[in-house]
């Protein structure tokens, strides 16, 4: 397993020391670091693109009146916000970290299947274009704009939608292909390319988190892809899988969607729960607590996430016994998730902590994701869910879970690895401002939404009753501030990457860092670990 890959040996000639120049470096990229960087750049760009619809949503909801968007445009905007953030922002960013870091962490020269890697990436921009192209077409008078069903694409509403729906379904198919390719590549790399002595239970936790994430993607994305093909067939080829008018079953789509959709939550979450303990251990200057417990929890979360999907459907009218099963199984997930929290606490407990930006974001992650997790406990109650389901309580819950978790984790990881990737330190002052403003404004946006949901405001409405006005205004103002705060991050990122104003980073970057990636210079050379390292 540890023998030098002959193909890499061949490549390793003098003229290949440096990357090719110009656009071909990126178009034909097979180097895992280049592809990793492309994923990151794409994902961060999409994070900002997906943030614009969010700002539009909050502008419309600033006051109770139809002012900014028509109801039709509003439905399209919420759909695109969801699809872009889930599929085009968070997933590519975590995949980018996998590409960049996994070979470095396991001492491999590259990913196992470099050309597949290239394909996996280049499907993404195509999918993103398909998602937003219908808006462009509408501007020149073709079609009715993009999909307007919400990201859940519930049938038969999806069957009424304009041609934008077809674009969205094909985009999801491409995203599924891309994720499946990336996942296969990651699994093969971890199974086959580990350096000598890097046994399974020595793999860094981040690598383990991706073992489970990749397995989940391969297990559930095909279900969604099949579902999308069935939707397209219903729309154009006269089938009636989901159309009750033709004997089909709208609830079948809900099952298919959530069979994918619930594990998807963990697909978004797990890679950042993998990176978090590395960051906590570094800045606590202490070895990671409960390595095996975390690994086993990942596996347990992965398995359980596949068997709890219908807790998203407690109001669909499932049989009582089915509801009780899904409630009890959902509650069980709280145990492995609590193990992760326990290990994070154990890692910082009695450490010697400093609070650089990555550490701040990691601690913020624990608090915000904690709120997401605790409110998830509430939502698992099939009876009380009658009151919470499809309200702003739910919206707030999953934003605490998905912004508080993955996005805070992504910021932590970006600040943590940026000096390694670029060889330059970012501005610590700006980083801290970014953290504190994000933490505050995020809560200003979403804490009122818990209360709105409890008071009875449904989600996905462009206009609302007057009693919801004060809290909506607070939430909207918070959203504008949260959006503006992210520009600080963008500036800090650009400043680090494109200028030399940051001080040079050492190989170890952080005083407390450990791991194979920190044995390499910052930035690492184009080819790394051509001769595999030896793990004691």
């Amino acid at each position, binding site marked *: 397993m540890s023998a030098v890959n002959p193909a890499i040996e061949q490549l390793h000639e003098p003229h290949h020391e440096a990357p090719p120049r110009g656009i071909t470096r990126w178009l034909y990229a097979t180097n895992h670091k280049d592809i990793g960087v492309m994923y990151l750049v794409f994902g961060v760009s999409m994070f900002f693109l997906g943030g614009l619809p969010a700002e539009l949503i909050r502008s419309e909801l600033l006051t109770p009146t139809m002012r900014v968007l028509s109801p039709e445009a509003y439905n399209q905007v919420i759909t695109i916000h969801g699809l872009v953030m889930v599929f085009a922002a968070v997933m590519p960013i975590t995949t980018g970290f996998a590409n960049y870091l996994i070979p470095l962490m396991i001492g491999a020269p590259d990913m196992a299947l470099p050309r597949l890697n290239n394909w996996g990436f280049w499907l993404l921009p195509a999918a993103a274009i398909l998602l937003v192209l219908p808006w462009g077409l509408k501007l020149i008078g073709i079609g009715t704009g993009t999909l307007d069903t919400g990201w859940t694409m519930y049938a038969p509403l999806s069957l009424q939608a*304009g041609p934008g729906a077809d674009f969205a379904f094909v985009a999801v198919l491409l995203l599924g292909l891309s994720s499946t390719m990336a996942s296969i590549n990651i699994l093969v790399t971890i199974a086959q390319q580990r350096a000598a002595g890097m046994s399974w239970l020595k793999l860094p936790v981040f690598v383990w988190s991706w073992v489970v994430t990749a397995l989940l993607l391969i297990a559930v994305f095909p279900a969604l892809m099949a579902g999308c093909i069935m939707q397209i067939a219903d729309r154009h080829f006269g089938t009636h899988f989901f159309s009750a008018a033709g004997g089909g079953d709208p609830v079948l789509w809900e099952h298919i969607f959530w069979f994918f959709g619930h594990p998807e939550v963990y697909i978004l979450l797990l890679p950042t729960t993998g990176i978090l303990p590395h960051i906590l251990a570094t800045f606590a200057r202490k070895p990671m607590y409960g390595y095996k417990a975390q690994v086993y929890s990942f596996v347990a979360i992965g398995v359980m996430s596949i068997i709890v999907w219908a807790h998203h459907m407690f*109001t669909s009218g499932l049989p009582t016994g089915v509801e009780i099963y899904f409630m009890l199984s959902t509650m069980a997930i709280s145990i492995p998730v609590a193990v992760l929290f326990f290990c994070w606490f154990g890692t910082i*407990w009695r450490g010697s902590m400093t609070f650089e930006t990555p550490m701040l974001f990691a601690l913020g992650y624990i608090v915000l994701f904690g709120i997401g997790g605790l409110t998830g406990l509430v939502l698992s109650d099939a009876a009380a869910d009658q009151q919470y389901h499809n309200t702003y309580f739910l919206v707030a819950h999953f934003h605490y879970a998905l912004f508080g978790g993955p996005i805070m984790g992504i910021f932590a990881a970006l600040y943590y690895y940026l000096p390694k990737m670029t060889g330059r330190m970012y501005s610590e002052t700006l980083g801290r401002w970014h953290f504190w403003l994000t933490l505050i404004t995020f809560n200003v946006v979403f804490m009122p939404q818990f209360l709105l949901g409890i*008071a009875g405001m449904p989600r996905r409405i462009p206009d609302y009753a007057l009693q919801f006005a004060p809290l909506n205004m607070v939430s909207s103002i918070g959203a504008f501030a949260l959006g503006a705060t992210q520009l600080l991050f963008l500036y800090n990122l650009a400043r680090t990457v494109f200028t030399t104003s940051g001080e040079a980073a050492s190989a170890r970057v952080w005083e407390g860092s450990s791991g194979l990636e920190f044995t390499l210079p910052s930035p690492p050379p184009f080819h790394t670990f051509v001769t595999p390292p030896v793990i004691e």
Partner: protein
Amino acid sequence: MSGEKILQLGLLGLAGAVSRVRPAAARAFYNFQTPVTPIARDVLFIHDLFLVIIVILFLIGTGALLYSVFAHSRRRHTQAATFTQPHGRKQWLWASTPFVALLIIDYLILGIPALHSIWALADTADAQMTVQVTAHQWHWQYQYPAYGIGFSSDLSTPQQQIENQAPKNRHFLLQVDHPLVLPTHEKIRLMLASSDVIHAFWVPAFGIKQDVVPGYLRKTWVQIDKPGVYRGQCAELCGVGHAFMPIVVRAVSPAQFQQWVTRERAREAAVAATASATYSETELLARGRHVFQTICAACHQLNGLGVPGAFPPIAAGHPFAASAPMIAALRARGFYRQGQIVEGPLVDHIRIVLHGIPGTPMPAFAAQLSAADIAAVITYERNDFGNHTGDVIEPAQVAALEDGH
């Protein structure tokens, strides 16, 4: 550590205090609406219990985190410990307590009340009355099979208020022309069906939210113990009118309910009689304007110009582009020529309003509007927005086309 304990105790007290002041604040804009059914009371109990528990868990967690951040910072704690797992039986025991506590919270403290209300909610047997609820894009229709009465319930907020051309009233977007009237203290079974896409029937004060899925007959129940007006709305995205299909329930005593049934029967008989009445053009235009603004304007807009790509203009002579099936349907009925909406034949106009256009969002209004209302709104549409057909349609013309084509 002792400081932390004191903090915890204080917070426990705070959580208790919060739960004690809740009933007084229950009608606030940031809290649950006052529950008026057994299920809603169950859910509020669960919610209060949950809230106290998760607030305590959150404070313990955040407290521990903050304590560690202060006590174990490099300034105060220069030498980091090196432990990576619990050592010895005592530590393992200590480390496993949070998980045992979590299991108890999950399956006993929260699980038992949850099971109780799930079973209670599922039990629709022994109902004293059944009401059939049908969801449409975008209004609700209620039928009382035992009394032979039924009606549609449409949003009554004027379109001008939605478009910010008039001041909003108190029940903006949560008011209807015909509320669902139910007797108090009786167990009422709701049978729910949808004529198009998935909707959800939600009245917060009743604690029920039931998806209405096309192809299925869903059921749930309510037993309201306080007379009053309760407001809710559709809770599943169902298209552009999703925010504009509220549910308003007027709960009255059983005796008042019987009186209402008598009045409603008389009203429906009077409406049926209008099918053979005749009206003047002025009467029809005034009535048609009202119908258009409450029903049609949601899609075709107050100015009759529609929404490009989605809803055609009523005003003739305006260009319109949309999906191929919609254009084909409009052209076949004579309302579309050379990229523009035109004044089509009267008979087809009546048929479109009566039966809708299958395959497009245009619904059938035969069951929802009276013949007089349809006659009025078509008269209005054909003589306003710059249209000048001069047609005056009487209810009998509509009634003649109502059954059969």
